[in-house]
C-alpha cells in the first residue's frame, strides 16, 4: 500500500506550524502549543461550565470551545485583537472591572460569567453608542444579512438608540477599483487595516485622524492601489468596505454557496461560489480552510471570466475557410471521421495531443486515455515539458520526490527561506503572504535572489540581485561558500546521501571568482546568504519560472537540490524545496500521465502494461510517444498529421510560438477545446466549447500535492461540455467509447490505476482534500543505498548571441500581479486592474530611448515582434526588459527561440504616444 495520506483538515491535529497569524499567538490558538517547555491545560469555568483551555487561549476561545456565545464586533481571528468594541466584556470573579474576552487569557481556576446584568447593560449602552450615528438603512446596505451590527443588535434585543445624533453624511469613496469605502457605515474596528497589514502585508490602509473624525484611509491618502485581495471587504463587520462587483444585483441570503477550488494558481485555495440565478456574483471563503479564509485578487475577483460574452457556446467547424457554428454531432463526426482516416492512412503515430494544466485531473486522465487507448499512441504532452517535468526530473534524480517536498503551511515557521527566480506574490499569492508572515512574525530569515526586484525584497535579510539567468552559478557559489566556511551538514550527508564526493570534486574545479563575475553578486552578500541559509534551524527553498524555464533549468534545479542536501534540509519538517509554477493544475496534469514517457502515476509502460490493458481492455501501444518539440517537427515534416489540443494555447503560452503557428498551418486536422476562441483555436479545423472550472466536477492537485474537489456550480453555458465529455463523444463516434459518464467514473478508475491514489474515494476529498506524496522511482538515485543523491554540478553561462549588439536588451517574462494566465484576461474585474500587457524598463534605459510611461514600444527579436505600452521602473536592471506574457494576442513568446526563454530584444519607440 503506497497511500501516504495525511489529513490536514483544520480543526484536527493542529500544530504550531499551522498557525497562520501573529495573533496566532493568542488568537488562533485552540490546540496550539506555544510554550512547549511548560505545557498545561488551564481549567476555567465559564457560566458554570468547566472548560479545559489550551495554554494561551483567550476566554473567548475557551468559551467558543464550550459552545458559549460571546458577542464580538471588532474581533477577527486572523489578526491581533483590537479590544475596541467592548462587546465581548465578561465578568471574572475576583476582578472588579469586566474584562474583554477577546484578549484576556484564560487562566487556571478562573470563573467567568458571560451574561450578567452588568455586562448586558454595558453591551447595550455601547451598542446604542454605535447605533447613534450609524445609518439604519439596512434595506439598501451592501452588508445586509451579513452585518455583525445587525446580528448582534437582533440577538441582544437592542432595537435602536436613544442617543441623539444625526448619521454622518460623508461622501463614500468610490474612486477605488473593485472596492468601495463608505465612511458613514464604518465603526473603525480596524479589522480591515489589520488584515491588510498582518495577513497580507500590503499595508495599504490606515486609520487617519483622531476621535470622532478618525476614518479609514489609504496609507498614502491616494486612491487605493494594492494587491486587491479583497480581504478588507471580507473582514469588515459592516457595509463600510464593500465589494463593488456584486452590489445591487443580489442579497447575501439569496445566494447558494457551492464549495470549489480556485484554479488560477498552484496554491489551490478553497473557496465558495455565491450563486443566484445561475450566475456567480461573488466568491467567499471560510476561516476553516487550508487557506485560512484568505483569497487573492484572482480568486476573489477573477471568477467572472466564466460569464464572459466571449465564451464559446457551440462547436465550431471550419467551412469555407471560416470557423462557423456547428452542432455537436456534426463536429464530433467530423473529428472522428478525420481521425479515423488519418489513423487508417498513416497509423496512430500521426496523431498527437496537447493538454493544459487548466484541465482537471479527470480531464487529463481521459485525455491521455483517449490517445493511448482510443487512438493508440503515446503522443501526449503539454507545456510541462518546458517547465515542470524538468523540475520533476531533477528532484527525482536527487531527492526522490515529485514537486514540493513539504506543505505550504510549514513555510510559516521555518528558520530560513531562500526565494530564487520568482516573485511569489505574482505567481502564488498565498505562498507570498506566508513568506511575509514568516519574516515578520516568526523571525524567518528570507533570502531573495532575483534579477528583478520583487515584492518580497523589503522582507528579505539578503537580496541577491544577480545577472539574468545566472541563478545556477549563484547557487553553486553559495554551496562553495558553505563548504569553505565549513557549515555544511556532515552528519546528514554521511548518513543519507550518496555522490557527495564526485559532486564536490566537480565543484572544487569551479572558481568562486568566476562565479562572482558571472553573477555580479558580491562575495559578502553571498557569504551572508550562505550563513543565513546553512545556519538556520531548518531552511526551505522556493523557486519558480526564472529558474525552471531557462535553458539550463534542469541543472539549476539540481543545484538547488544539492544545496538543500548540503545543508541537510531534506526529509524533515519545515525544510525542503517548493517549485512554483504559474498554472493551477500542473502537478495533477503530470500525475495523470500527460507525457509520452510515463503512464498515469509515473508508471513505466512496461511495468504497468498489464494493469492498464486489464482496466481499459485495450492494447497499449508499443511505440515511444512524441514530446511537444517532436510533435512540431512531425507537423513540419508531415509525419504528424493531426493535433488535438485541450485547453492549451501554444500560440500564447509556449516558447517560440511563431514556429508553432507555422506548424499548425500544416496540420491536416487541428482540434481545439477551449473556453474562448484563443489564437490557437482560431487556427483550428474544429473547436469544441469547453466547460469552465465552475461548470464541472473534478479534482485539482495543488503544489503541495493536495488533491481537492471541484463541485459543479453552474450548468455549462450554451452547449459547452467538460473536456472529458468532448473526448468521450469523439471516442464513441470512433467506435471505441471510453465508458465514462461522469468525472467520478474517471476518478474511480484513477484510484484503481494510479498507485498513490489507490483506495481513495470521492468523498475523502471533501473539505481540504488530501495531501499525497507520489513516490518516485528510486533505481537511478538509490544505487548507493542511500535515500538521496547529489547531482553532478557544472557551471553554465548564458551564451552571448552573435547579434548581441543589435539586440541589446535581455527580455524576461512574467505576469502581472493581477492576472493569472490567459483565461483571467477575460475577467472584466481583473481588466480593471490590468487591462493589457506591458513591458517594464529601467528609468535610465527609458531616458536614453526617450521613452516615458504609457509610450508604446516595439519589442523585437529575430523571431518576431510585438508592440506594447511601456512602464518605467527600477525594479528591472539596466539592459533588461520585463514583459507581461499572458495577454493573448500580444504574442510575447513569438520572440523566443526554441526550447529557451532566453531572449535578446531591441526596443524602438512607436511614434504614436498614448498621450501621457
Amino acid at each position, binding site marked *: 500500500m503506497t497511500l501516504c495520506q495525511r489529513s490536514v483538515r483544520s480543526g484536527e491535529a493542529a500544530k504550531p506550524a499551522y498557525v497562520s497569524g501573529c495573533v496566532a499567538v493568542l488568537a488562533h490558538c485552540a490546540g496550539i502549543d506555544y510554550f512547549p517547555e511548560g505545557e498545561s491545560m488551564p481549567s476555567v469555568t465559564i457560566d458554570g461550565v468547566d472548560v479545559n483551555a489550551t495554554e494561551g487561549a483567550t476566554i473567548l476561545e475557551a468559551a467558543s470551545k464550550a459552545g458559549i456565545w460571546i458577542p464580538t464586533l*471588532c474581533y477577527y481571528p486572523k489578526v491581533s485583537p483590537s479590544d*475596541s468594541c467592548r462587546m465581548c466584556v465578561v465578568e471574572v470573579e475576583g476582578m472588579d472591572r469586566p474584562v474583554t474576552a477577546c484578549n484576556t487569557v484564560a487562566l487556571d481556576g478562573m470563573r467567568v460569567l458571560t451574561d450578567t446584568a452588568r455586562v448586558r447593560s454595558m453591551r447595550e449602552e455601547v451598542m446604542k453608542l454605535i447605533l447613534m450615528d450609524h445609518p439604519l438603512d439596512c434595506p439598501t446596505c451592501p452588508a445586509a444579512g451579513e452585518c455583525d451590527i445587525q446580528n448582534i443588535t437582533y440577538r441582544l434585543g437592542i432595537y435602536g438608540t436613544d442617543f441623539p445624533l444625526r448619521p454622518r453624511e460623508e461622501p463614500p469613496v468610490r474612486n477605488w477599483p473593485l472596492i468601495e469605502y463608505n465612511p458613514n457605515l464604518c465603526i473603525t474596528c480596524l479589522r480591515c487595516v489589520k488584515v491588510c497589514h498582518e495577513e497580507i502585508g500590503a499595508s495599504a490602509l490606515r486609520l487617519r485622524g483622531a476621535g470622532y473624525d478618525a476614518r479609514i484611509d489609504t496609507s498614502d491618502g491616494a486612491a487605493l492601489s494594492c494587491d486587491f485581495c479583497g480581504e478588507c471587504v471580507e473582514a469588515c463587520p459592516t457595509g463600510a468596505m464593500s465589494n463593488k462587483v456584486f452590489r445591487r444585483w443580489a442579497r447575501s441570503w439569496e445566494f447558494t454557496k457551492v464549495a470549489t477550488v480556485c484554479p488560477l494558481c498552484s496554491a489551490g485555495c478553497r473557496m465558495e461560489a455565491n450563486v443566484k440565478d445561475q450566475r456567480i456574483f461573488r466568491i467567499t471563503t471560510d476561516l476553516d480552510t487550508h487557506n485560512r479564509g484568505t483569497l487573492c485578487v484572482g480568486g476573489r475577483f477573477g471568477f467572472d471570466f466564466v460569464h464572459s460574452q466571449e465564451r464559446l457556446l457551440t462547436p465550431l467547424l471550419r467551412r469555407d475557410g471560416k470557423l462557423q457554428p456547428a452542432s455537436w454531432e456534426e463536429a464530433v463526426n467530423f473529428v472522428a471521421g478525420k481521425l479515423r482516416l488519418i489513423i487508417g492512412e498513416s497509423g496512430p503515430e500521426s496523431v498527437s495531443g496537447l493538454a493544459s494544466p487548466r484541465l482537471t485531473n479527470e480531464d487529463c486522465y481521459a485525455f491521455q486515455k483517449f490517445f493511448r487507448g482510443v487512438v493508440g499512441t503515446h503522443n501526449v504532452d503539454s507545456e510541462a515539458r518546458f517547465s515542470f517535468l524538468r523540475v520533476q526530473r531533477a528532484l527525482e534524480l536527487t531527492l526522490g520526490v515529485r514537486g514540493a517536498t513539504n506543505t505550504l503551511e510549514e513555510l510559516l515557521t521555518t528558520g530560513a527561506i531562500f526565494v530564487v527566480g520568482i516573485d511569489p506574490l505574482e505567481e502564488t499569492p498565498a505562498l507570498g503572504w506566508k513568506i511575509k508572515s514568516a519574516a515578520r512574525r516568526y523571525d524567518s530569515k528570507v533570502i531573495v535572489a532575483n534579477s528583478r526586484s520583487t515584492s518580497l525584497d523589503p522582507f528579505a535579510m539578503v537580496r541577491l540581485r544577480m545577472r539574468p539567468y545566472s541563478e545556477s552559478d549563484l547557487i553553486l557559489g553559495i554551496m562553495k561558500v558553505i563548504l569553505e566556511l565549513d557549515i555544511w551538514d556532515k552528519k546528514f550527508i554521511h548518513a543519507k546521501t550518496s555522490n557527495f564526493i564526485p559532486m564536490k570534486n566537480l565543484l572544487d574545479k569551479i572558481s568562486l571568482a568566476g562565479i562572482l563575475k558571472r553573477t555580479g553578486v558580491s562575495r559578502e552578500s553571498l557569504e551572508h546568504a550562505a550563513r543565513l541559509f546553512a545556519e538556520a534551524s531548518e531552511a526551505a527553498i522556493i523557486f519558480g519560472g526564472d529558474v525552471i524555464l531557462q535553458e539550463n533549468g534542469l541543472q539549476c534545479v539540481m543545484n538547488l537540490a544539492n544545496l538543500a542536501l548540503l545543508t541537510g534540509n531534506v526529509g524533515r519538517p519545515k525544510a525542503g524545496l517548493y517549485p512554483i509554477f504559474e498554472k493551477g493544475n500542473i502537478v495533477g496534469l503530470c500525475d495523470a500521465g500527460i507525457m509520452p514517457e510515463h503512464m498515469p502515476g509515473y508508471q513505466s509502460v512496461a511495468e504497468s502494461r498489464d494493469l492498464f490493458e486489464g482496466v481499459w481492455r485495450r492494447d497499449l501501444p508499443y511505440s515511444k510517444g512524441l514530446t511537444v518539440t517532436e510533435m512540431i517537427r512531425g507537423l513540419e515534416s508531415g509525419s504528424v498529421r493531426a493535433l488535438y489540443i485541450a485547453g492549451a494555447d501554444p500560440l500564447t503560452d509556449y516558447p517560440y510560438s511563431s514556429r508553432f503557428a507555422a506548424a499548425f498551418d500544416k496540420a491536416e486536422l487541428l482540434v481545439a477545446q477551449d473556453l474562448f476562441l484563443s489564437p490557437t483555436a482560431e487556427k483550428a479545423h474544429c473547436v469544441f466549447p469547453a466547460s469552465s472550472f465552475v461548470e464541472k466536477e473534478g479534482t485539482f492537485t495543488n503544489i503541495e500535492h493536495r488533491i481537492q474537489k471541484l463541485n459543479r456550480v453552474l450548468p455549462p453555458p450554451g452547449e459547452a461540455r467538460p473536456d472529458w465529455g468532448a473526448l468521450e463523444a469523439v471516442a464513441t463516434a470512433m467506435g471505441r467509447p471510453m465508458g465514462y459518464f461522469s468525472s467520478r467514473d474517471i476518478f474511480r478508475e484513477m484510484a484503481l490505476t494510479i498507485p498513490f491514489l489507490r483506495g481513495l474515494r470521492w468523498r475523502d476529498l471533501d473539505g481540504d482534500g488530501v495531501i499525497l506524496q507520489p513516490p518516485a522511482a528510486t533505481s537511478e538515485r538509490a544505487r548507493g543505498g542511500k535515500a538521496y543523491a547529489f547531482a553532478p554540478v557544472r557551471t553554465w553561462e548564458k551564451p552571448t548571441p552573435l547579434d548581441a549588439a543589435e539586440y541589446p536588451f535581455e527580455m524576461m517574462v512574467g505576469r502581472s500581479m493581477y492576472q493569472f494566465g490567459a483565461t483571467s484576461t477575460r475577467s472584466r474585474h481583473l481588466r480593471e486592474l490590468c487591462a493589457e500587457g506591458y513591458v517594464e524598463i529601467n528609468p535610465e534605459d527609458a531616458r536614453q530611448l526617450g521613452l516615458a510611461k504609457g509610450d508604446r514600444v516595439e519589442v523585437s527579436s529575430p523571431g518576431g515582434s510585438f508592440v506594447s505600452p511601456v512602464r518605467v521602473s527600477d525594479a528591472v536592471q539596466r539592459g533588461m526588459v520585463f514583459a507581461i506574457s499572458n495577454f493573448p494576442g500580444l504574442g510575447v513568446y513569438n520572440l523566443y527561440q526554441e526550447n529557451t526563454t532566453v531572449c535578446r530584444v531591441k526596443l524602438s519607440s512607436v511614434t504614436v504616444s498614448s498621450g501621457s
Partner: protein
Amino acid sequence: MNPLVFARWGATCADFRANTGLSQDGALEMFPGLRDLPANVVAVLSGKGFLVFEEGFNFVQLVREYVDQIQARYCCGKCLTGIKGTKMLQIALGKIARGEGEESDLALLERVGAILDEAAKCSVCQSSGELVKDGLRYFRRQFIDAISSGLPEQNLSYMAKISAPCMTTCPCHIEIPTYIELLQETRYAQALSTIREEMPLAGVTGRVCPAPCERACTLANMGKPPIPIKVLKRVPADYEMLHNLPAPLEKLPLTAPPVAVVGAGPAGLAAAYYLNRLGHPVTMFEALPAPGGMVGVGIPPYRQPREVLTREISVIRDLGVDLRNGVALGRDVTIQALFEQGFKAVFLGIGSHKSVPLGIKGENEGIQGVFSGGIDFLRALNLGLNVTVGDKVIIVGGGNTAIDCARTCLRLGSTEVHVVYRRTEKQMPSDPREVEDAMEEGAIFHFLTQPVEILWTDGRMKGLRCIKMELGEPDASGRRRPVPVEDSEFDMEADTLIPAIGQKADLSFLSPEDEIEITRQGTIKVDKHTMMTSRSGVFAGGDAVSGPLTVVHGVAGGKLAARMMHSYLTTGRCAPLPDQEMDEILQAVEKQTHILVTPRPETRLGGRDLQKKLDMRERLSTFEEVESGLSQHSSYIESSRCLRCFHLVLAAVKREDYGAAGSRQ
C-alpha cells in the same frame, strides 16, 4: 501659588470653599506634590481626578475643554466607546456651554459618563467620564446655571499633554505605549518612527538603557513583571538593521542657520539629529578617531555591538549631518573660531571621559599594571590600541564601568578577576543583571572592601592592600556610609589594577576667553530650561552638564538643546517651551501618585525571561553580544501585555501668552 479650593484625587476629596474645617496645610499633606506646581496654574484635570486653585472657577468650562481636547487630539480612534462617548459628551457640553442645554442633557451626561468610565479601552476617554460624573456630583449647580444662561467668559488658556507613567519617567519621553501597541501589530517601521520622534538611538538604548521606564510600569507597581520596554525597543531597530531597510526619514532642505556640534556621543548625536530635522546644516566635531562617545569607546561590544551604533550614526549622517573625527576643541579649534567659521550656534556634548583617581598610595608612580581608570582602559581597547592585562586583575568600583572592565578582562584571558567595592551588593549603582552576568562569567566580588595602598616591587604591581568596611550612619545620598573596620587590613595578590570609581568631564580645554562658566561639581553650567551656557549661542548637554549619567539622559539633553537652539536661532530668544512647562506640571502631578490611571488586572501570558544568552563557552572567548533580542513571537506576547496607561493631563493656566493649543508636537 493659589490656595487649593477643591480637589478630588483618587478616592480623596477635599472642599475648601466653605469652612469645612480643613486647613490649607492639610491640603499640602494630602497632596504633597502641590508644592511643585507652577504658580500660574488655576486647575489641573487628569485621569486621577482634579485640583482647582481659584475660587471663581467654572467646572463646566474645564470639563468641556478636557473633552474637546480628547476629541480633537487624544482619542486614538480605536475604541468605539471612547470615540462615540466623548463625542456625545462634547455635543452635550457644547450645547450647555452655549446656553442651549436642557435639563435632560444632565441625564445624558450622567449616562454617557457612566459607560465611558465602565467600558472605554484606556484611561484617556475613561477619565472624561469620571470627570463628568464628578462635575454632576459636586458642581451640579454650575451645570444648571449654564443651562439657563450659558457660560461666562473665562480668561484662561489650556495646556494638555498625554502621557503614561513609563513615558513621563523616560528622560526622552518616548511615546512608549504607542510603540508597544505598534509592535503588537507587527508594524516595526512605524514603531521605530515613533521612537525616533523622541530618540534616534533605538538600537543602542534597546541594549544599554537602565530602563527607568520599566520601574515606572504600572505592571511593576502591581507586583508583576513589567513590560520589557527596553528590549522591545530593540525589536524594530534590529528588524530595520537586519533587513537593511532604509530609515524612513526624509532628507530635508537645510536652510536654517548652520550649527556646530562638539562631541559625537549620545548628546551630540541627538542634538545633531534634531537640529537636522529642524532644517539646520550640522557639522559635528569629534575629538576621538571614531564617533559614539561613551557608547562607542566606553561600552564593550559584548553589550553594545559596534555595528548597531555604526548603523544608527550612519542613519544620522545620511540625513546630511557632516561628521569630522579627530578634531578636538581646545586643541584643533576654539569656540570663537567656530563662530568665526560661520556657525551661528554651538552645542557642547563633550561627555565626561576623565577618570576619578582612587587617591591611594602608589597610584601615580607609573607602576606597570596599574591603569589610570576604567574608562581609559575601555577606550584604549575599543579604539584598537594594544592593551594587555595580567592574570590576576583587581577592579575597584561598583558602577557599570567596573563591571564592564571585569567582564572585558575575563574575555581578554585573565584567570582571576576581582571586583572590590566599598559598599554592599545592594548598593551597587550598576545594573544588577550585569553583576549577575559577571558573576556567572567568574568575576569574584569583594563587598565592603576599600583599597588602601598599592603594593609593588621593581615597578611592577604585586598586590593591593585593602581594608574591610562596615555600614555606618546614612550619608547625604541617604545610603548608609561605609566606615573602615579597624585592624582589618589585608593584602590581595594581583598584577593589574583598574580603578573604576567614577568619571568626570575633562574641561581643561576651556580657557577664560571661551567665557563658559563651570559649576563647582566640575560640569558646564547651563540654564536648565534652555540648556544655554553662560556664553550666548553656546549650548551644552549630556554628561558634561549632568555628570555621568545614561545614554537616554544624554539624548534628552541633546534633544532639548536642539529645540532651544532652533528657537534661539529663529526667534532670537530662548524661553521654556509650553511643553517643558507642561512636563513640570505633569511630573509634579505624577509625583503625588505613581499611577495616574485605574490599574486593570493583567491577564495575558508573558513576563518571562525571553532573552537568550550566549553560551558560556562562547561568551568568554569572544566579544560577541551576550544577550539576544526578543523573538518576534515573544515581542508580540510581551507587547500585548501592555495596559496602555495613557492619561491626559489638562492644565488651565492664567496667562495670556500661551496659546490654547495643546503642547504635543
